């Protein structure tokens, strides 16, 4: 482990992954520094979501190592990986982020609750920041797609994670709403000092990036913006 890893929010060391004999990632090296915003571009099926899953410890690489907030994921138990994800990672996907069984408040509060911590104040503050103050008692099923994504953003950031992974969080939204969600993500992540990996196939979002990753044919190319 080199000393740079300790400081980084996320490091991929020669990570390879294939599914059913098809190589999706081929010895990928990459680093996300604390507080940095990375935009990940790539065609559909190129392996973007796979990178997110590997980064969150939800999938294991065939070879190479993933280091999350200083912790090499392959060297810790499934339980520790989970706790790491709970405390250090925020996740926003295109849809189905929320548990329909829980209210808006409970969804945002979930990570605190799983940890046995209180966090009521943080949740209230977060809901106010995403513009859903006073709507914590509602059920996600009854919200619009945009509102659901606001809840997802709130849930992904309420515990001040070192790394936020957003996998096409605007994919199912109209342009205006999408803009609002992206603004929220960027503003809140920066405000809390976290890093953000933003997955999209819309090149326009390059504007928000400190760094851009392009995924093509299993290779990751990086460029500063």
């Amino acid at each position, binding site marked *: 482990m080199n000393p740079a890893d300790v400081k980084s929010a996320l490091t991929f060391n020669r990570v390879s992954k294939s599914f059913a004999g098809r190589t999706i990632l081929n010895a990928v090296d990459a680093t996300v520094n604390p507080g940095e915003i990375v935009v990940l571009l790539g065609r559909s099926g190129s392996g973007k*979501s796979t990178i997110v*899953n590997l980064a*969150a*410890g*939800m*999938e294991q690489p065939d070879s190479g190592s993933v280091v999350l907030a200083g912790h090499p994921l392959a060297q810790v138990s*499934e*339980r520790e990986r*989970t*706790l790491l*994800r*709970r*405390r250090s990672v925020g*996740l926003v*996907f*295109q*849809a*189905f*982020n*929320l*548990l*329909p*069984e*829980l209210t808006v408040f*409970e969804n945002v*509060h*979930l*990570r605190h*609750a*799983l*940890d*046995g911590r209180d966090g009521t104040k943080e949740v209230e503050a977060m809901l106010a920041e995403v513009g859903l103050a006073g709507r914590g008692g509602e059920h996600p*099923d009854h919200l619009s797609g945009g509102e659901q994504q606001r809840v997802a953003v709130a*849930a992904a950031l309420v515990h001040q994670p070192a790394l936020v992974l957003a*996998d096409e969080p605007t994919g199912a939204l109209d342009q205006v709403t999408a803009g609002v969600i992206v603004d929220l993500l960027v503003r809140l992540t920066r405000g809390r000092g976290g890093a953000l990996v933003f997955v999209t196939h819309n090149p326009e979002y390059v504007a928000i990036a400190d760094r851009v990753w392009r995924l093509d044919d299993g290779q990751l190319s990086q460029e500063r913006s």
Partner: protein
Amino acid sequence: MTILATIAWRSQRQHPWLAALAILGIALGVAVATAIALANAAARHAFAESITGIVGNASHQVVAGSAGVPEGAYAAIRAAALAHGGAAAPVVEAEVALIDRPGRTLRLFGIDPFAEAPFRASTSAVQRDRAFPLARLLTEPGAIVVSQPTAEALGLSDKIRIRHGTTIRELTLIATVPDDGNALNRSATIAVCDVSTAQEILGRLGVLDRIDLILPDGEALSAVTTALPSGAEIVPAARRGDSLRQLTEAFHTNLSALGLIALVVGMFLIANTASFAVVRRRELFSRLRAHGATPGQILALVLGEALVAGIFAAVLGVALGIALAHFLLRLVTRTIGDLYAVIGPATISIDRSIVLQGLALGILATLLAALWPALDAARSAPRLGLLRTVPERAWRRSLPWLALGGGGLLALCGAVLVGLPPTITWGFVGLGCGLIGAALLVPVLLLPVVSGLAWLAGILALGRHPLVTLASRAVGANLSRTGIAVAALSVACAAALGMTLMVGSFRLALDTWLATTLSADVYISAPRLVAARVGAQPLEPTLTARLLAVPGIAAVLPKRDAVVSVTFPDGTSDDVDMAAFEPLPDSRDAFVARPAFASPAAREAAWTAFTGGALFVTEPFATHRAVKAGDHLIVHTPTGDQRLTIAAVLVDYSSDQGAVYLHRERYRAWFSDDGITALALTAAPGVEVEDLCARLRLAAGDAPLSITSSRALKTASMTVFDRTFAITAVIRWLAAGVAVLGLIAALAAVQFERARTTARLRAAGVTPREVIALAVIECLFTGLAAGLLAIPIGVALAAGLTHVINRRSFGWSMELHTDPWQLVLTVALAAGAAIIAGLIPAWRASRRPLAEALHAD
């Protein structure tokens, strides 16, 4: 973790009646097991009390056939017993009919209150009560005492009109004894009275039915023996209770086995419910894992749910079980009463250990069954967004293991049945292995069977229809959710089929046997099976002469039942039942040998040997005593030991303990005994059998004889048989009911879960009616497959019950008769259950507003 509890609660609340069905399924399993245990315990208790209530602590009894023991001999016998530290008490007893309660009887039990104390806690406890009107009991004509429960059960008032033989009398109920838990209260419907009262009512003045004795040692025995009047003999008293106890044990074992089958079915259902509850919420668990819930937290969530459901279901199940027990108890006690002896009104006492057992069973079974699905849930991969993994794959992967486990258990079943000692316990273990093994194979075989059915549907030109194609695919895809429930249905149907075939075969065998065996027209014997068995009540010669003088009798076959001492080939000795008779040449056909005689010549040879002094033994005797044709038994007779060959083993369903047969001429010579215990009469041509019976009854007068036409005897036997198996029918339908309920829950759950698919189909233009048709076709495939798989399992189970369990517990062998109608019925039952199970949710899905259904997450 309150958040996990919240999630569990809300995710269950989304489908409240799936949760309710699951809890009901478990509860029914617990209920059946608890009810059988409670009813069994109550019946056993009542039975034991009845026996001690009647036999008491007596070690021996003085009896003297139907004539009875002269009362004059009592003083000398009592003196002899007392002189050697023993005790003696006189008994006069008989069954009397209650005129105001047609069909009900009261056992009049005449005793000497002053001699009772050492014998029956029941009758003597009555007198310890200061307020007890002892003087009235001793002096008042017709004064009786009954227990409170008996009085209530029979609705007795102060004046009770009874009939004995042809005499009608009125008795006075002078007191009822409160239910203080002593034996009298729980035992048979007994009315206690003074000896003299009983003698007077029964017309047996100066005669005792028996004298109960407590003889501490051999010296006391010989002292009393010398005091015996002529015609009287001493028999050990314990035999009666013991042999009865053995008899009922077999019955209880069979009943418990049925309870076990119900429980196995219940366990399968719990497992299915739990695993479906996990599969149904795969997305939930994956999302929770993505948000940082650890595997341990998911495990806790699922097991916590199971624990709560288990507690609910166990409590409900025990409550249902207690209610059910009252119903079962009536059947059980009636059966035991019919089969073996008088038994009193038994009551369910809520035995705390059985209740705790039921609760523990429900909770533990639920947790155990939920463990595998819970581990499965804990292993869910963390995922957000739409799930890509197909749960069916995990199911397919487990099929080889199921096949391996099932095959292994079947092999074990074979090994246990063939390789281990042929005891009833091993029989049950083997059969249990076979049943569970077969159940494990069912899910493996379901897919091929369903494919076969779809192929068949194709041949029937239905296959082109897109709905049929869709349905047959869906069945395969849904097996991960329904496989275990379908297996449970298969096993339950198989269990029901197996029991039905076994009982049917047994009934047929018994019917055939009765038809050939009861070749005479009228049977006369001492009234009680038990008394006859002890062999102590020969018909008096004068009575016999009187009976045989009745006009219209063409032929007479006298029989002597006795208990004789025998030494077996292995050197051990025991008392066994012997029947000595001389069959009419043309009634020899009624005796079927097992194994069958090799040729008519062999058959002739066997009968020639029998006439010359060889023995026949009945099949149960051969089984229990491990002897076969060609073996030798040493029969101890007053004229010396006789080493006799067993000429053949004969089929006989009359007793499950078995007997040896000896030619009556040999018996008379060796035992110097002319006594007769039973007579079989053939009516002369043109004589109405019922008329003959009536004339015989008239001639018998007050003598306690049973005089029955062969037709009535046969009907009575079949009635007893049907009652015996009424309870098994109830239980097997309960087991099937549990399974059907479980399947309804499982299929309904699948249909509910597919609401989104259904909505898509409807959006694509499939009509509500077609949606229902699709579900019905799908469930029909599933049900047919379950029913078809139940057939081989059921037939195998029937064979096991017939050739292993019945053979080992009763020693009776019979042909297995496979009634094709029952096979058809089984498949129809399974298919019908499946269709009902699928119809409800499909109907709901078809009516749901489309927009709502399409957007449901």
